[in-house]
């Protein structure tokens, strides 16, 4: 069973529709106990870092997420669900979960912000969820991106008037800056590859 993290700020419909389409069993989780009872988690964060962290703290999901992440179960963070893995976000000058070392910074680009639309990912190394997706287009909508302290966490990057990190992989914990649930066939492929890991309850030592 995949837990779909609902902190009351995001909209789960598009992710749950995609999981239904793929035939993957899921349920909504709103507290730490429910989260820790699942085999894998998808965290589709939408919105601003500060208010999301406040909501996570008030429901105790912040501690639940940390415990879940450390337990070696598959996790997929989407957009804000990726960013919150790091220590601090420049958006709202907010502390984040701090599971990974690094910062969330505003994109530095001469192009328009937010970065909205379809862009490609350059896959840095073999990553199970990105199998056969090097160069694929995904749908982005964001102004901030992660800067991990450890470059080996980078799974893929993307060019938007300068390169930024678009996928983080510390298997079985993954984070994507784009929205696979809105990225057509290739997005569904990524989600299906994550669901396969979830189904196998992949151990923590693969990355």
């Amino acid at each position, binding site marked *: 069973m995949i837990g779909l993290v609902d902190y009351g700020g995001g909209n789960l*419909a*598009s992710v749950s529709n995609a999981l239904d*389409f793929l035939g993957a069993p899921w349920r909504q989780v709103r507290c730490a106990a429910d989260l820790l009872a699942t085999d894998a988690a998808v965290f589709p964060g939408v*919105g601003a870092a500060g208010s999301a962290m406040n909501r996570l703290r008030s429901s105790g999901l912040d501690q639940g997420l940390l415990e879940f992440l450390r337990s070696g179960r598959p996790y997929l963070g989407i957009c804000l669900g990726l960013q919150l893995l790091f220590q601090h976000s420049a958006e709202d000058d907010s502390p984040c979960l701090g599971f990974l070392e690094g910062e969330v910074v505003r994109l530095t680009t001469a192009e*328009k912000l937010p970065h909205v*639309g379809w*862009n490609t990912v350059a896959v840095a190394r073999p990553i199970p969820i990105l199998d056969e997706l090097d160069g694929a287009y995904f749908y982005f*909508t964001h102004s901030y991106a992660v800067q991990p302290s450890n470059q080996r966490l980078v799974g893929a990057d993307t060019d938007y008037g300068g390169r930024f990190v678009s996928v983080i992989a510390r298997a079985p914990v993954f984070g994507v800056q784009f929205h696979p649930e*809105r990225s057509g066939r290739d997005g569904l492929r990524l989600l299906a590859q994550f669901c396969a890991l979830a189904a196998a309850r992949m151990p923590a030592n693969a990355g």
Partner: protein
Amino acid sequence: MLAKRIIPCLDVARGRVVKGRHFRNLLDQGDPVQMAAVYAASGADELVFLDIEATVEGRDTLIDLVTEVARQVFIPLTVGGGVRTTEDIRVLLRAGADKVSVQTAAVADPHLVEAAASLFGSQCVVVAIDAQRRGQGWEVLTHGARIPTGLEAVAWARELSRLGAGELLVTSVDADGTKGGYDLALTAAIADSVRIPVIASGGAGGPADLVAVLTEGRADAALAASIFHSGRWTVTGVKAELEAAGVPVRR
């Protein structure tokens, strides 16, 4: 590199796709769920649904339609038509819309744009501008392009950007329905004045028009309806032409 987006637009009334946005006689064009799936499979980057009647009774039909499309189509969906309050926006987002387009209500109460952006994030707030040529500039029209507002379109675009709009959907009332090409000057004037994406609309007759508005017109995305609904062009076919012209597209 960021791709230019090609967006089929489906005008809907009473659960059907219709043609004749600014006219009385509506021609039935097909089933929206089926058409959405075909366009998505053909490479559409996004879909826009506009409820052109926007009656209170039609609202539930629209919400059912969005719910059904969102279950089957996994590309961004923008829904508009008769959106007046943040509650209207919330309901459409919950049904599965990724973005909601507001127009008349934004002119009546610009605070709506600000409130929606702060509640749901700018990324889901699209503001539609219907603009008509007036001398050297353009005037904003509302209520299905029937009511002039006295607002100058470029200044209005800047104001919307300041209020937190995430994207602007700019329709040339003069070009709409002519198939004679987009209003490149209008699109470029707005695209050059704001730092948010501009979707050009109105006047697409063939791929050359999309090439022009995505280059000379400096639009980030091109919306078209009848060239796709008529079956004259597929999204795949248009994208092949764009690619040949050097416009970056998702293939």
